[in-house]
């Protein structure tokens, strides 16, 4: 297990290095210039001076070398537009995003599993059909539309929850719901299919024949057996949710790292984009590692293949 973790961490480190270099070069290749954004009508000479101050006037490779050297000294650069250290800027918005993402994840897993299990247990009844239909609707609705509708109905019409900003958990509820709905739908559909399949397996029938109580069959036999494909699905859904988080944070003007990323890209705030990309890449790598470890915990066959842990 330990060697697996170390191997995955090393792989992750190489991936982050590659992403950092690719992002660095791509950002400077695409049209747009942060100095121009700051002073649209400045003369070329003034822009050169501004770029000098920003440290972006040198050849790309020189800038890249300096950037990598600084990273090893713990310096991730400076946000041109927030006038603060990139780490400080990211730290300032990370809390809001963690709350949002965590809340959306809890909603997704809780309701995805709950509705999926109910639909499986009531397969082919009106409940199953209702839940499956709702899942299709949830999955089909674009995030920005759901977000706008939630704002109009819950915030504007009913005045129940705030629509924009972040000053505490209640500001995360609406964006969290908008973010979780597609994932709830995906999880529900897959849990349902997986559970139906498990419930038809011979070992479940054998357990029933042995007189094992239904709730034990459900939780220890059928549900646990359904978890491995769900874990894989959840891993891919987390990536999808991070992408959707950018949209949700924009619609709700929610000051998290998704909104920071969007604004930083639009303004060509190079070092902030770099820092955010590293954070998000690191998140994906850690999530995938946890999922891999989760496999070995849930599936004895994988444990045995990895050395009998």
């Amino acid at each position, binding site marked *: 297990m330990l060697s697996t973790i170390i191997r995955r961490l090393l792989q992750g480190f190489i991936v982050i290095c590659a992403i950092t270099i690719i992002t660095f070069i791509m950002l400077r290749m*695409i*049209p*747009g*210039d942060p100095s*121009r*954004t*700051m*002073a*649209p*009508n*400045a*003369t070329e*000479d*003034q822009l050169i*001076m*501004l770029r000098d101050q920003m440290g972006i006037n040198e050849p790309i490779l020189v800038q890249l070398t300096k950037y990598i050297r600084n990273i090893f000294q713990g310096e991730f650069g400076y*946000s*041109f*537009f*927030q*006038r*603060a250290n990139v780490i400080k800027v990211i730290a*300032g*918005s990370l809390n809001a995003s963690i709350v949002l993402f965590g809340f959306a994840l809890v909603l997704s897993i809780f309701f995805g599993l*709950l509705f999926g299990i*109910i639909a499986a247990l009531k397969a082919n009844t009106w*409940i199953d059909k209702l839940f499956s239909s709702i899942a299709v609707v949830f999955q089909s609705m674009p995030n920005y539309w759901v977000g*706008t509708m939630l*704002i*109009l109905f819950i*915030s*504007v019409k009913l*005045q*129940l*929850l*705030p*629509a*924009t*900003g*972040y000053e505490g*958990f*209640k*500001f995360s*509820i609406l964006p969290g719901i908008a973010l979780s709905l597609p994932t709830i739908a995906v999880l529900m559909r897959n849990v349902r299919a997986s559970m139906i399949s498990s419930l038809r397996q011979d070992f479940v029938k054998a357990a029933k024949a042995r007189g094992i109580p239904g709730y034990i069959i459900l939780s220890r036999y059928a549900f646990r057996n359904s978890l491995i494909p769900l874990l894989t699905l959840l891993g891919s859904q987390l990536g999808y949710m991070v992408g959707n988080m950018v949209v949700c944070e*924009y*619609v*709700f*003007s929610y*000051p998290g790292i998704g909104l920071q990323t969007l*604004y930083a890209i*639009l*303004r*060509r705030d190079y070092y902030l984009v770099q820092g955010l990309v590293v954070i998000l890449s690191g998140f994906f790598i850690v999530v995938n590692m946890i999922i891999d470890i989760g496999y070995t915990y849930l599936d004895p066959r994988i444990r045995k293949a990895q050395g009998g842990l």
Partner: protein
Amino acid sequence: MKKLFGILLVVLVFTMLLVGTCFAEKDTLVALSAGAFTGSWDPTGHTILANIRNEQIVYDRLFEMDYTDPDLKLIPKLATEWYYLDDGVTLEVKLREGVKFHDGTTLDAEDVKLTVERFSDPTRVGSAWWAQQCEGEVVDEFTVRLRPVSGEAFAPLVNLMAMTPIMSADDIKNEEILTTDYNGTGPYHFVSYENEACTFVAFDEYWDQPNKAKVKNLIFKYVADPATRLAALQTGEADITERVDTQQVEQIKADSTLQLITMPIIEQKNMVFKVRVPPMDNEKLRLAIAYAIDRETIVNDILDGYGVLADSFVSHVAWGYAPAAGFPTYDPEKAKELLAEAGYPEGKGLPELTYTTSVGFYPKTQEYGEYIVSNLADIGIKVKLVPMETSSWEDALYQPESAHMTDTGWCPPGLEPDLTIAAFYKGPGQVSFIEDPELDKVVTAEGAETDGDKRKAILKDSVFPAIAAKVPHMTLFDSMMIYSTRSNVKGFEPTPSGGMPFHKVYFDE
């Protein structure tokens, strides 16, 4: 099923328990900006509107234009008197005594001298507004003389001083302070900048007590999405928003909790010809295009009337505005004739022209861009419209050969006409890169005339007709800024230069 409903009920109750007061307190004014801040608080280190608006409430100017006066007469602020000396070049200014900066220091002549020298320093980005470098001379503690370094008359100086924030000399000498904090003499002082929001608090020791800030706290926040800005207003999380979409106007009118404010502003939207890119160096071709554009339909139908049909090369609200003789108006037949005179009868021999435009900031650019393409197709000119993301477009905008034509907007921070005229038409003009001795001559002449009436006459009789004959830019329309506020917001009087004087705002309970 009972369990399921039970769980849902728990979630609902939990949610309701979290619901509390989520609306702005009444000692706090929350205003939303459509443009982002730079995060650099040095007023000479940028040229963007969001920061300029901050400076309009944190700093004072020597004097201000009275926007209600047709002649835009100047109202004393930090200056009590100002006049040109006999040389016709030097502006002498007497300062108000006892004015305090937010850090407690007192305003004096040195502050004004260093402010002018820093702003007009060609190495500073803020000098983009200054056609001439200027210097100051301290006569005594409260008297300062300002003059161009060249020794030649510089007519825009007075109007420039009506928009120039007066900084502290101590801060100017210490750039670290200047870039990281605001320190002015204005009605609000700066507290913090976090998560795209600037926070201010009313300055109790403001020298102009009748005009001190009426609401104690101010939050000025960048929210990019117009729908989100409106939603924040509807829920009461914000009190004022700018750049309302024209599609949102009816919704606001129907909502009794909101009010709508429209204001023709100094901003003009232009089609700019990149004259260094053949065949755009052909004046007749530029004129043919200018005559082919049906601007009336753009303003009335595409913009739903939220724009003012332009008839000059400065906005209707600018100092010295006059209709330009020879300003092109929609006339397809004349456009065809001009196209033939340009050497391209019915467009024959003319390559496909590229026309860049931005999406996501200015309203309806792509919609009216497509309409212009169809206008030009009607006279035989093939045009490819290239919509671009704002940063990419902005980068291309200031490149001399990035397209044949481009859409752009221009919103200078004051009503001084040279902020537009000298910037765009004195060679090399911004965006178009025109260099024309005739235009240079007339623009230089108006900039050197310090007598206001004579200067206006030069603008009307020489400058505007000269531009109309060459059209490096075709002005499409003057922008109209649409603001919306909560209905309990009173005293909000935005200025034609795009300013939002928040210190006059109060809540009607």
